[in-house]
């Protein structure tokens, strides 16, 4: 993949889903052109490329129609270049395990953060934090089983689940700070807390992780377009 413009990625600096794809592209050393989208004023290209959801990230590969949804994009990249840093394991059962936890992370774990942001009443917030604690407990157990004593979900090397969950570390840290909460409390979930520090400092992710200002301004935007109401 020598031609840089062969892969284009529509993303937003603050979006953990866009970061996820960038993390994967960086791990695979695949060159790509990054196009920053302003979600307050979506480009024609974005709306045309993802008419169903009008969301980032969107992958444009050569002259093919667009691919949307970050997990799907990451699997696609892994399938077209399995020779470059394979993310998903080769064994079918291990792949199924990865997909199961990826679904849990995106459908159960991360939505709690959006719920927390939208919930103003104290009792509601406490109930969500309880669910977050339970979710991180599940992820701690998943990590212990998957890592088998090694550094990452993928073992010695960063694997699919490290990418799927790793992209959320900065975002959730930001929400934790706003809510005086610590999801990766070392007392409670030692292994996952260690992993979180490790993955956040991985070069392929660190280079695309948004800074505090970027996150703050993005949160400001979301609070306008999808204000808290509960």
């Amino acid at each position, binding site marked *: 993949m020598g031609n840089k413009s062969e892969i284009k990625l529509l993303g937003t600096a603050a979006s953990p889903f866009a970061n996820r794809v960038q993390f994967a592209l960086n791990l695979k050393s695949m060159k790509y052109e990054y196009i920053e989208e302003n979600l307050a004023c979506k480009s024609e290209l974005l709306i045309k490329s993802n008419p169903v959801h009008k969301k980032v990230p969107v992958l444009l590969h050569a002259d093919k129609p667009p691919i949307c949804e970050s997990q799907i994009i990451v699997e696609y990249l892994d*399938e077209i270049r399995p020779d470059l840093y394979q993310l998903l394991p080769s064994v*079918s059962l291990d792949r199924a395990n990865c997909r199961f936890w990826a679904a849990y992370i995106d459908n159960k774990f991360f939505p709690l953060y959006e719920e927390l942001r939208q919930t103003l009443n104290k009792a509601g917030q406490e109930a969500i934090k309880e669910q977050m604690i339970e979710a991180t407990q599940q992820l701690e157990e998943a990590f212990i089983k998957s890592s088998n004593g090694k550094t990452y979900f993928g073992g010695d090397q960063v694997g699919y689940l490290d990418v799927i969950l790793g992209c959320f570390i900065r975002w959730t840290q930001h929400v934790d700070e706003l809510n005086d909460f610590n999801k990766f409390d070392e007392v409670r979930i030692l292994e996952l807390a260690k992993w979180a520090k490790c993955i956040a400092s991985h070069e392929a992710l660190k280079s695309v992780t948004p800074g505090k200002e970027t996150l703050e301004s993005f949160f400001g935007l979301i609070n306008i377009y999808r204000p808290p109401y509960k």
Partner: protein
Amino acid sequence: MADEVKLLSLLGSPNVCRVEIALKLKGINYESIPQDLVNKSADLLKYNPVHKKVPVLLHNGKPISESLVIIEYIDDVWKGVPVLPQDPYEKAQARFWAKFIDDKCTPAILKAFGMEGEQDATEANGQLQYLENELNVKGKKFFGGDSINLVDISASFLAFWVGAIEEASGIQLVTKDKFPKLTKWCDDFVNCQAVKDSLPPREALVAFFKGRFGN
């Protein structure tokens, strides 16, 4: 050693049905073990401790949960009739539509029948239009082309359960004039052998939903 395949199942569950369709398409012999979701069995709690739900596939004793994850696993392990396209790009598109059906379509459909919050069909009409357009653009019998694939299987709820709910509730959602391609697709899909063999009896389903709507 012969493969031992078991499925923790539930009659009437669309997600269980999806997995059964995939198993039957591949000609896999399996044992269906119906579950009681009120008094959950030790096996269900052991094999799906995270969600405690069906379906759960047991392949030589190893559990796999989440219907779409199970279907991808089945396609991975057993060759023969493909459930997912081989081409990575086509595969990505199939996964996109399957996810769309689960994340957007089905919740919107439930809303359209008043089964989740206040009854409102606006969202469902919008989402179904995307599927109608997709069939139009493809110009084939199924989302998978000439034969069914992951997308068609993911839409089992739409193909069969929705008709039963329409009859039970008196609310029409997927009409021929609004969604001509989708309506035809429903008929063609339920007539596929693997699907026919996996669907629950329609009368029982209608009776169940009539109960829910108090009719």
